């Protein structure tokens, strides 16, 4: 497995685990009917910081195992894979952005709009890294 693929696996694991916990917590907030009072923004900032820290640690571990590959620039196949995966993920981002715009227009509670938009960002990233892994495995 190449450094880029390991890096994609590390990123996808970080996003799924950390933000999986965050959205699980948000689901509890919805079930408890506390969406108008719960201070989700501070929790959101905390989880974003945690994801950055974990991502840095995981990427450093992956890079330390293959420093030559980690320091090398992407070659043409890796650039193509990055572009194709980003292209797919872009659709997720557009759909989420349009949904958020609709939520604002319909005056939906900020809790749902903010978390919906954040979920869009997370899903976009997960789709991008998943796309990279598929292209690395199946060919491009």
């Amino acid at each position: 497995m190449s450094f880029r693929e390991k890096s994609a696996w590390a990123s996808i694991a970080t996003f799924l685990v950390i933000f999986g916990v965050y959205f699980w917590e948000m689901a509890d907030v919805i079930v408890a009917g506390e969406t108008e009072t719960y201070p989700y923004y501070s929790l959101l900032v905390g989880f974003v910081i945690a994801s950055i820290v974990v991502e840095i640690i995981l990427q450093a571990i992956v890079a330390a195992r293959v420093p030559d590959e980690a320091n090398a620039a992407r070659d043409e196949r890796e650039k193509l894979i990055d572009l194709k995966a980003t292209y797919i993920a872009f659709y997720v981002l557009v759909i989420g952005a349009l949904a958020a715009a609709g939520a604002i227009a319909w005056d939906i509670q900020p809790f749902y709009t903010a978390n919906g938009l954040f979920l869009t960002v997370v899903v976009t990233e997960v789709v991008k890294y998943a796309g990279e892994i598929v292209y690395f495995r199946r060919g491009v």
Partner: protein
Amino acid sequence: MGGSAIKNEIRRLRFENGEMTQQQLAERIGVTRQTVNAIEQGKYSPSLEVAFRIAAVFGVPLEHVFRYVPR
């Protein structure tokens, strides 16, 4: 995706050129070993520039390395 219509003789050419490794070829043409492996397996069709570099490494014309097989 896999099953490209462009077939190649890279594996045979590596063998005939002192059993050159994928890593050695990758370093000479400026890509990763995994990309050489993907090209060999038909999972990636290289750019024209990389294709010419591969042919140059083996000292053969391009059509001796790659051939198009219509599906």
